[in-house]
């Protein structure tokens, strides 16, 4: 593709491939999360389709895509999980799966680092601190 002004100024979300990339990543990412005994109890008793939609929301946000979540939303959204004992170790596990998912999809390291930075920036809100 020629370097049009659009591609030069492409957002992180566009560089990753937009909604299509979220679709590809959600399948791999959510499977890793559900298979991980350290954190899968947080995902018990939820409808898988709805949960997959929420995982898409999560990835869209981490990919720098369009979303309406505020830090306050992140606090409220994970409030019950914090009551269940959600802590840094669980957050780290999710970060691990996020990175591994992007590696599996052959996303360049520089972009993975940007995604990780966005996700990392929500840590205190997610953990309710």
């Amino acid at each position, binding site marked *: 593709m020629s370097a049009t002004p659009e591609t030069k100024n492409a957002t992180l979300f566009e560089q990753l491939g937009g*909604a299509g990339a979220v679709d590809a990543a959600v399948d791999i990412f959510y499977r890793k999360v*559900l298979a991980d005994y350290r954190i899968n109890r947080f995902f018990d008793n939820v409808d898988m389709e709805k949960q997959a939609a929420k995982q898409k929301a999560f990835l869209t946000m981490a990919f720098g895509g369009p979303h309406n979540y505020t830090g306050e939303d992140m606090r409220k959204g994970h409030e019950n999980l914090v009551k269940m004992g959600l802590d840094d170790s669980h957050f780290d596990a999710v970060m691990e799966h996020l990175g591994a998912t992007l590696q599996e999809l052959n996303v360049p390291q520089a972009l993975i680092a940007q995604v990780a930075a966005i996700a990392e920036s929500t840590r205190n809100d997610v953990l309710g601190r």
Partner: protein
Amino acid sequence: MLNITLGESKISCQANETVLEALLKANIQIPYGCQQGVCQSCLMCSLDAAPPVLAQAGLKDTLQKQNYFLACLCHPEQDMTVALPEQQGALLNASVIKKQQLTPDILRLVLQYDAELTFFAGQFVNLQRFDGLMRSYSIANSPQHDKILEFHIRRLPNGQFSNWVHDELGHGTPLTLTEAQGSCHYLPGRMEQPLLLIGTGSGLAPLYGIINDALAQGHTGAIHLYHGSRNQDGLYLIDEMRGLTKQFDNFNYTACLSGACVAEQAIETGYAQGRAHDLALNANQNLKGWRVYLCGHPEMVNQSKRAAYIKGASLSDIYADAFLVSNR
């Protein structure tokens, strides 16, 4: 400028406008979220024109085939009549042509309907009694010219609708039904894909329809059916399923009994011991690339969905109908 019709409202959609934008501009509220084709909360269905391909990005193939689309991605190419997913169409009249006991608790009900109905085996319709009581039942047959629908209906202790069907519904009793819904059905394409079907009790109804449909369309991949019940009394169509395994090399059938005191004799005569989904999922460690159908007991469906997914099946390849029963 094109016209969009939703229920009683007719609105115009400018070039460059999406259906969602046009609806919102006309002050018609429909659910929506990201407006980028990601969250799928603005799912709608076209009742006439096939929606633009781009408006169906990311939807399950069964939904695409039924003309579902995302309003936020849809730049109409012609006039469209659209509906929200749960919006029910007209009711059809139906009458009983056959009632046959399949097990002590499960009845085969065959109805004839009087108008046009498009459906796939495995979808469900809502049956409605004269007083308005309505319940969902899965379709066990493929569409034919004779306009019949087959259901397998299990009697629940004190269940209002199921007991009425078993005991009172007769040849002359008026009955109505809604349009077919749901995405749990067979679709041709990817004929070599292995299929895993797990059902408990009357959950065999949709699977029976899906299997016959797949075989009739020449599916070449392996097809594995696991049908489970607590005891021998709960299984049915056994001879017919065994017959199919002889007729089709790619069809495999496992009848599963989960009861504690399953007679040894039962095992000797070809039943597997254990719960259908445990047996099915233990026999297949890697489900990457498989298509999975799960029907019947909600807990079985939910557990299996998760397990099949973790074993590699992608979510868009897992079709499930949990036979949810309302809690009074």
